[in-house]
Structures are given as structure tokens and as C-alpha cells.
């Protein structure tokens, strides 16, 4: 009987630990979720949102400014624009007219970015290469 009680106790402790772990993990997951916003969605709220988020869109041409440490640019998605402020190194593929994802906080009027991600699409083909590939060999 004692063996059976031992196993029961062991199973109960395991279940308790397991549910505790599940609670901790789910809580951490909820706290660290980063929602993805477009400039249009951010424009609709004027007050600063307390949680970190991601903002995605295109860097508007001519909007890039650098003032010593601080970097300013505008992210647009065709319907709205958001001004972004960032301190730090920009990834190599960052450029005006290119896609960008900024991670940070919405301060109400500007987006304070803590991380910038830029991606290169392998299907992007510059016009010259596309034209020459179409011409048949003479």
C-alpha cells in the first residue's frame, strides 16, 4: 500500500509542478507578445500604448534625417504615415523606398523604435537585368 501511496504522491507533485510550469509559460507568452501594426492602425490612436509592438511598412522617400545619434524617418503603407525615431545602427538592407519592420513603443505622435529589421526579397530584380534576360541571343 505504501508503494501505491508513494506513486500517487509522486504523480500529484508532478501534476502540480506541470500546471505551475504551464501557468508561468502562458503568462510569459502573453507578456511578451508583440502585435504587428500598420501605420494606418497606429494613426487611429493618439495616446501612447504601453506595450511594445512592431510597425511595418515602407520607408518614405526623402523622409530620412540623421541628427548625430538620432535617426528619423517615416514609415508609410499607402494610407497613412508614421514618424519613427531610432538610435543605433541601421541594418544594411535599410533604405528609402524599401520595406522595414520597426520594434518599439508608440508614443502617441511618434514611434520610438528599439530595433529595426529590413529584409531582402530574393525575387527582386533590377530593371537592367530583367531586360537583358528577355532578349534572345543574336
Amino acid at each position, binding site marked *: 500500500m505504501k508503494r501505491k501511496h508513494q*506513486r500517487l504522491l509522486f504523480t500529484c507533485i508532478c501534476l502540480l509542478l506541470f500546471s505551475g510550469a504551464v501557468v508561468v509559460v502562458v503568462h510569459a*507568452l502573453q507578456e511578451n507578445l508583440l502585435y504587428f501594426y500598420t501605420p494606418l492602425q497606429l494613426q487611429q490612436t493618439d495616446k501612447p500604448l504601453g506595450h511594445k509592438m512592431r510597425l511595418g511598412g515602407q520607408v518614405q522617400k526623402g523622409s*530620412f534625417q540623421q541628427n548625430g545619434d538620432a535617426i528619423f524617418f517615416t514609415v508609410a503603407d499607402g494610407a497613412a504615415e508614421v514618424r519613427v525615431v531610432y538610435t543605433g545602427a541601421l541594418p544594411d538592407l535599410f533604405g528609402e523606398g524599401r520595406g522595414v519592420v520597426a520594434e518599439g513603443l508608440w508614443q502617441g505622435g511618434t514611434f520610438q523604435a528599439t530595433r529595426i529589421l529590413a*529584409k531582402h526579397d530574393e525575387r527582386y*530584380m533590377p530593371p537592367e537585368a530583367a531586360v537583358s534576360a528577355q532578349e534572345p541571343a543574336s
Partner: protein
Amino acid sequence: MITRLGHLSLVMSGSLALITMLWCGGAYLIGASSSVQTRVRWLATSLILQFWGVALSFLSLLYAFGTCDFQVLSVALNAHIDAPLLYRVSAAWSTHEGSMLLWAFLQTAYGAAYLLCRPLVYSGYQQRFLSVFNVLNGCVLLFVLLTANPLVSLDFSPHMTGRGLNPLLENPLLAIHPPILYMGYIGLIVPYVSALAQCAFPGRERYWAGHLRPWALWSWTFLSAGIALGSLWAYEELGWGGWWFWDPVENAALIPWLLATSLIHILGVLQRSALFPLAARIFALSGFVMSVAGTFLVRAGMVSSVHAFAQDAARGRLILCFLIVLTGAAFWQLIAYYSKVRPPLLQAPRNSYVRLMRVLAVGFGSLAILVALGTFYPLLHLTLTGKDISISPSFYNALFLPCFVIVCLVMGLGSAQVWRPGKGYTQTLLSMAVVAGSVFWWVWMFVPQAQCLYAFTLGAGAWILLTSARALTAGVRRIPMVGAHMAVGICLISGAVEQQGLQQKTVCLQPGVAQEVGSLRMRLDATLRESARQFERRRVCITVMQGSDSCVLEPAQRFYPLHQARTSEVALWRRLWGDLQVVWMPSLGSDEETSEAVVGVSWHPMIAGLWTGGAVLALCGFLAFCFACRRLQAPR
């Protein structure tokens, strides 16, 4: 011509796989009278022929890239006449299609290698192994032929210089990174198929574990090397010296690594004492399943990551189908095995070694589940609610790191098991615990801004190093295990010190004037401009002085006109106790020469320890592989 030959041989391999699949499947269903012997022989020949076919086509692809045969579409899009040979050839596997052909090549190679290494035994296990392997080959070859064929050629031969590789990928580390990582990922297929076959034909567990262990060690070594190389590339290329971002693609490599680590330990226990057969099967099966899941993640374009290939939902659906079939087969066989054999689930552990291994299996399994949860949850959320989310790195830092450090404490105890029979075991162990504990207490109390986790990590690293160092005296046979454990300890300590001691600053340097930056003095000497065949390069020459040492660093910016892309070259001053990284950040969009330079300076203490630890880890894995092979060949 050669590529047409390559294409043809690929088609033939694919059809051979299909034919063999249909023939064996048909024979099984009909209950034909052909013996196991004929079927095994036919399967073995088929697998070897498939390997030769795919090898021929892969070599023809490499040849096309090496000679810049622009009639092949893949070459036209990714190679450039002026690129060095290494980047021309590595472009072969940096696209989706080329990397899938690399996958097919390595998979068929593993099949042929298995046949080379094992004597051909005519048994149910062997037949099941070979036929399942053949089915998997068929699936991958079909996928490559129908959706991801890199050997597709144009009708004409265009006169062009080629578009060239994405400039970010032109780095020697990244050139060899895919083959090494894929060797690890795909190496896990042998444990998968082997576990499937062993579920159907259980018996001779110790023999099975002994023969599977070298395969598991081989793929574990390559996974470790691949992950370390990827981190090194990120550190040297991406600026600001980050080496781990909890990016979905990085996690996709970490999960199989964690499962493979569990596998090599559990197989050791199974070989020694015939315990945990079910756990061994679970880890073997889940390793390859998570490899394919990681592939799905990277190629389906559903998660935003800087590393991902271009989006294509159709590819993703096919890989998802393959993944579902793999997982379904694994669950089915596991349930069949459990209901047939009923292995004991919760045995009383015989000794502390078995107890430790159980904790390790649970620990690493949980870590793998945790990382998988964080990596795949955004995908789940997207499918269920349509909202795009991502998990920030602090989730992993808060949960994974403490659990990993606790598992490492157990690892230290594992090293201690090696010198257990010696006298004074308990006293030595206690004194080592006291030393590690005092390291923890001293760092927490007296190092400024030290958090509990940082002190805990350093204490755990000290504990591992102490217990493993003592284990070095146990004999040559133990060196791989002890070395690998010490390497993990070194990585823990270096990683923690680097993260804690990281300092970054942005300074604006004026030419000719030496500026104080922290404890350094930096002076901008010149801004130079030069052009190479594919790119234009602008660099700044900076002299950095610290005490009596000085170094000239030349961070640069490259501009590739064909891609309209910039990449930056980071300048590194590698010193004994850390690295100094200098990145030049010229103002975007302004091409005019300004006399001043804005640079980002970062100090990374003890980062060399991380790379040393990674190299030692891979080396010890390889040594363990060699020792395991030798053990197999030694007469009983």
C-alpha cells in the same frame, strides 16, 4: 549539356524512387511471394542508384554555377561573372531550389552511407528501414522535381553578367554554413527511420542503440558546428556584435540540437543498461520531425524574420503535408510499439546515473518544447485569429535561460559520475559546490549591476568546469564527454560575461583629432574610396589607442550597384579579453564626402570564449563519433 544530363539523372532518380515505392508497396498489399531477401536487395540497389543520380545532378548544378552557365535560370539570377569562385559555387545552395537539391543530395547520401556501414541483414527491420527511407527519398525528389527544380534552363543562352548573390550572403562563413547545417538536420533522418523500424520490430535494444549512436553523434556535431558558424556570421556581419537574436530561423536549428543532445545521452543509457527504450524512440523520431518543421517555418514565409527565404505559400503547403505525414507515422508507430510491448514508464531508478539521465531527458525535452512553443505560437495565432504577432526575445531570456542553467547544473553532476568510484567523492563534490556557490555569492554581492541570473550562470559555469576538470583524469575514453561539458561551461561563462559587460557608444569623429571614448582614444585618419569589380567601397581609417597598444581599424561600406544594396564591413580588434568592434555609419542618402565620421563602437568582453567553446564542442562531438564507431568494430 552537363546540366541537361544532371536534370535527366534527377528525373531518373525520382522515378526510380517512385517505382520502388510502388513495387514494394504493391507487393506488400498483394502479399506477393517475393522473399524478404529479394525485396531488401532491390531496395538497397535502388537507394544506391538514387544517390548516384542525385549526386550527378547536384554536381552538374555546382558545375553550372562554377562556370557561370547563364542558360540555367538559377545561375542567371544568383551568380555573377566577377564573383570569386567560392561565392559562385555557394550561390548554388543559397536559393530555395538549390538548397532543396542539396537536401535531396544529402538525404540520398545518408541512405547510401547507411548501406555502406551496415552489413546487409535480411530481416524485417532492414526491409522496413529501407522501404521507409525510399518513401522519404521519393517525397523529397518529387518535391524538388515538381516545385523546386534548380536545373530549369532557359531556351536561349542570354548574354549577361548575372545578377549575383545577395551581397549580405557574400561571406566565407555563410558560404559553408548551409552544407554543414544541412548535414546536421538531414542526419537526423537515420535515427527517425531507424526508430520507426525498431518500433515495428522491437528487440535487441542495446544492439540497436549501439549502432544508432554514431549516426546521432555525427548529426549532433554538424548541428553544433552549424549553429556556432551562424552565430559567428551574425556577430561579424550584422553590426553591433549580436550573436543570438531568438530569431525563428535560429530557433529552428536550436530545437533539433536540443533533441539530438537528449538522443545521444539516452542512446548511451539504452546501450549500457537497456533502459528508456520509449524515450529513445521519442527523441529519435522528434528530431527529424522538428528539422522538417523548421524547414517549413523558414520557407513558408509565414513568420517575419530577416533570414527567411522569399514568401511562397504553395511551397509551405507541400512541406506542411510532408510534416503531417512524418508526425502521423511517428505517432502511429509509437502507439503501436507501446501497445505491443508495454515498456515500463516510471521505473524506480537503479542508481544515480539513471536518475540523472531521466532528469536530463525531461529537462532537454522541456527546453525543446519551450523553444518550439515560442517559435510556432505566432504561426498558430495567425492561423487561428488572423493577427500577425511575434514573440519578443525577453520570453526566451526569462524562461529558457534559467532552465538551461539548471540543466547545466545537472550536467556537472553527470561529469562527476565519471570519477565517482574514486575515494573522497562526496567530499570533493561538496567542496566544488562550495567553490561554485561562493563564485555565485561573490558575483551577486560585489559585482556592480549584477543580476541574480548572471551570478547564477557564472556559478553554474564554474561548477561545470570544476567537475569536468576532475573528470579529465578518468581516461582517454571519457575525453569527448568531458571536453563537450567543459565547452558548454566555457560558452555559458563567456556568453554571460559578454552580455553583462557589453558596452556600446556612438561617436562622431573629427579628422586628425584624437577623442576620448571611454578608456580608449580614437583618431580618424582618412576616408578613402575605391572600386572593385562588383562593388564600390568607401572606408575610414581609424587609429584606436588603449594604454600602450594601438591598432588601425578600417570599417567600410560597400555599395553594389546591381542590387542597389549597401553592406557594411565591420572592423574588429581581437584582443585577449574581448573584441572591440567599430562600425561606420555614414549618413544615408548623402553621397558627398563629409570630413567627419559617425562610428559605432562596441566592446565585447570574453567573446572569444564563445567561439572556442563552440569549436571544442564540435570537435568533441566528432571524437565521440570516432570512439563510438571504434567500439562497434571491436570484437565483443
